């Protein structure tokens, strides 16, 4: 189901409310907002179209759906922009009032598509939403036509809520809260919502009423809806709480990472400090300074900002201080497509610094998983004294899913293990290491631990500057080993191979999880066998991954880039993994993947030369 209208039409709001109502019902769901790139493109034009797609079902949903079955189009531009994505036979609900000559022109229609055979393959419902909305609030005290006109998204929401049998109370409560201080707007919106609902119920226009049963096969627990941004923020916060370290987020605004800054800025009362730095370099420096001070230092950004942080990340790595860098990937290179998603920063995360400079990298796989991944990033950073890169992406950040709220006992405590003063007569060795290769963390404040660290190569143990060639070689290896050692404590890669006898493995990472699951399911529904696994730890990789890869005849690695993880796997394990790449700035589609998997299953096995 997709809501589409002008960016001034409140489509994101309608979509969001619908999502909430759906989540409360216990349906499983996934969403995909699609904003225009301009802040406010001219009203009524194609660039100004804003859309919100939601996919829900009683069975676990993995993606926002490839193509919507129902489109709500608030104006001709919204219709035009979304038509290509609709499968034949889909239902279209249009706001008939908006199909004026002027709007048709702005959308580039010579004729109204409602009047010619443009829509002949679809079921079209014309609803005069604007006038119905206006009419709904006639006579309401203090409600002007402007308020009324603005509420047509609520009318659409009411209509769709009826159509899909969503509960009305959640939405009504939300309207009441939202407009508590503006009685006129509240009345107008409530009236519009109810009018939409009633319209659905009372007219005979809509022939089917969809009923979807609540989800059944899910884990028990308390659930809420989260998007990836909120889940990341909560995961970082949980890490901070479990480590008993105050969190500092230093960031510079950039789409789509800014929301994380906004979200964490609200939580000063939970010990969070946020600094909007003058640029991304400064943001990384501020986070590192906080880490030096014994706090949990985090910095967040998207692609272009990652470029700028690389020198400071390299310093953090030399200093062996904890720090988390969240990269909400977007389509690159350069400014690229800031509002579109992509997975093309993986190799930069691995190698985007001068020198041999390895560090741990994690990738979240669903909106909800952002919580777990963020928590784990904090844990690794603190326990291993290293900068950690957490990769999410624009799709994860903005899409939401029902999420089982973890009870806090499930989360391990994190021990910062601050160094304590050495016994009288001994001096502190800031670069001494434990068996995992981890050095002490000694924030300023403890007498006797005064020490100096820096970006120049350091003598093993003392941390003093050392130009000794052998020491440099040693330290380079020690730093690498510290990171690769982490693999020993990671869970092995889990493979979903129900019969244990598939020949083809589909291995992904990051936000393609849902699409890959859905694609795999479709393949299995056709009676074919395919195994599936998803990598959450990019560096180090899970220790059994080589074995897993060698266990299959063919391995497909779908990515939203030109093939990045696949390069690492091939180099490391010399296994002929095949890339499957989509670089349109959009999530993978299950149907496309299904095809690719089937093709690989059916391809004759290559005889090794």
């Amino acid at each position: 189901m997709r809501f589409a209208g002008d960016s001034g039409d409140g489509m994101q709001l309608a979509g969001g409310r619908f999502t909430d109502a759906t989540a409360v019902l216990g349906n499983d769901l996934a969403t995909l907002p699609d904003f225009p790139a301009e802040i406010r493109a001219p009203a009524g034009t194609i660039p100004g179209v804003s859309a919100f797609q939601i996919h829900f079902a009683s069975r676990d949903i993995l993606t926002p759906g490839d193509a919507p079955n129902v489109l709500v189009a608030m104006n001709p531009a919204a219709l035009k922009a979304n038509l290509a994505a609709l499968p034949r036979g889909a239902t279209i609900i249009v706001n008939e009032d908006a199909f004026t000559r002027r709007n048709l022109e702005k959308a580039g229609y010579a004729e109204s598509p409602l009047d010619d055979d443009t829509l002949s393959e679809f079921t079209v419902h014309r609803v005069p939403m604007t006038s119905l909305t206006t009419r709904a609030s006639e006579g309401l005290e203090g409600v002007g036509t402007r308020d009324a006109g603005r509420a047509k998204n609520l009318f659409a929401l009411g209509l769709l809520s009826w159509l899909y049998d969503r509960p009305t109370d959640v939405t009504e409560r939300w309207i009441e809260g939202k407009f508590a201080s503006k009685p006129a707007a509240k009345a107008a919106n409530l009236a519009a919502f109810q009018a939409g609902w009633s319209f659905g119920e009372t007219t005979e226009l809509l022939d089917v009423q969809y009923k979807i049963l609540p989800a059944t096969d899910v884990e028990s627990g308390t659930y809420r809806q989260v998007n990836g941004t909120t889940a990341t923020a909560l995961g970082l916060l949980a890490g901070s709480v479990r480590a008993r370290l105050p969190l500092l987020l230093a960031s510079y605004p950039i789409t789509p990472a800014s929301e994380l800054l906004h979200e964490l800025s609200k939580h000063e009362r939970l010990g969070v400090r946020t600094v909007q730095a003058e640029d991304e370099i400064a943001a990384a420096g501020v986070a590192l300074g906080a880490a030096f001070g014994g706090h949990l230092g985090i910095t967040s950004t998207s692609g272009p900002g990652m470029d700028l942080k690389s020198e400071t990340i390299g310093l953090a790595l030399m200093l062996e201080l904890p720090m988390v860098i969240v990269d909400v990937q977007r389509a690159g290179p350069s400014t690229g497509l800031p509002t579109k998603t992509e997975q093309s920063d993986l190799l930069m995360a691995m190698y985007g610094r001068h020198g041999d400079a390895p560090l741990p990298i994690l990738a979240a796989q669903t909106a909800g998983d952002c919580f777990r991944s963020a928590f784990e990033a904090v844990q690794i950073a603190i326990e291993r004294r290293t900068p950690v890169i957490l990769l999410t992406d624009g799709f994860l950040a903005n899409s939401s899913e029902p999420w089982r709220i973890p009870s806090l006992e499930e989360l391990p405590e994190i021990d910062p293990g601050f160094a304590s003063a050495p016994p009288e007569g001994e001096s502190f060795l800031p670069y001494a290491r434990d068996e995992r290769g981890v050095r002490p963390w000694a924030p300023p404040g403890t007498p006797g631990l005064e020490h100096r660290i820096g970006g120049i190569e350091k003598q093993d143990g003392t941390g003093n500057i050392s130009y000794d060639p052998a020491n440099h070689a040693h330290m380079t290896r020690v730093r690498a080993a510290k990171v690769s050692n982490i693999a020993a404590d990671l869970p092995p890669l889990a493979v979903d191979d129900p019969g244990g006898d598939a020949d083809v493995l589909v291995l992904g990472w990051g936000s393609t999880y849902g699409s890959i699951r859905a694609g795999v399911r479709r393949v299995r529904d056709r009676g074919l066998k395919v195994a599936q696994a998803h990598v959450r730890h990019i560096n180090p990789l899970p220790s059994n991954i080589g074995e897993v890869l060698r266990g299959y005849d063919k391995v497909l690695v779908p990515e939203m880039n030109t093939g990045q993880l696949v390069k690492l796997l091939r180099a490391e394990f010399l296994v002929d993994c095949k890339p499957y790449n989509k670089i349109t700035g959009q999530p993978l589609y299950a149907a496309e993947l299904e095809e690719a998997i089937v093709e690989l299953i059916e391809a004759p096995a290559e005889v090794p030369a």
Partner: protein
Amino acid sequence: MSATLHVNGNGNGAEHRLTKADFQSDQETRWCPGCGDYAILNAVQTLMPDLGVPTEKTVFVTGIGCAGRFAYYMDTYGMHSIHGRATTIATGLATTREDLSIWVVSGDGDALSIGGNHLIHALRRNVPVKILLFNNQIYGLTKGQASPTSERGKITKSTPFGSQDRPFNPIALALGAEASFVARTLDRDRKHMTEVLRQAAEHKGASLVEIYQNCPIFNDGAFFNLTEKDTKVAAQIRLEHGQPITFGPEEALRGVARADDGGLEIVAAAGNEQRLIVHDQHREDPSLAFALARLADGPTEPTPIGIFRQVQRPVHGAAASENPGRAVGDVGALDQLLHAGDTWTIA
């Protein structure tokens, strides 16, 4: 893992009255013979015990450059960071650790070339750090290129036909960037330097101290007009709070007065007593401090030294909300946040 090592003697220093020696690290100083950095190090190490901040609460964050090595020589906490970014790291530290005394040591390249933006933002934000800018008007560590304070026409390795660009006046730049404490002192005037540093240390907020520092290897004598016996009396315009601004030898005392066109001018002190400007470092309006900064375009002219401005204003890092940080480690508060909004339970 053993993070300790046996050494002979001195404990953590908290028990006894601190001395200069407590601030001297065991690292050998490695500047060129005659480098002005030695004098500054010496002055700082001598001043430190007087400030009453123990070594473990003192942090030096430095950038890259000859000046950047400063961190290694102080037996405090320290970080020798990367080029131009020391201020950002100090900002992170200051934002989270109000209990520390944080010093940044930087060079004219480090602070004004690659690090210029961080410097002006730290000043604007009034981050509580003390920034020492060792200005030798040259790149020392990289062996002699022009810096943003090198004078026009200067021949350096990177400007074989002479530097083309007008240099920054660091004091004017800082005042343009809303700095709350701005001062200038000289590597070769231990007493003056100590007094300026003391006031910088006491200032609540960002303090910028420009220290004219001789680099005998690549820019020898750049400040000799101000520092050497035979010229300094005529060249130093010493700013002293509450005093009329005068300078030069007794017998030909001169002073700074307001000119008819509204600018400043240098006049004979005798006969102009009423017109002389009385220095007020606490003036809210930075305009007069700015005008004083502009009195000299470079150290070859009579040049003001001392504290140009010191005013109190809100400090960066103070919490914006009520009860900040109440819930560090508070599992209940987190739990509440996790459950915020609509939830549902599945049995």
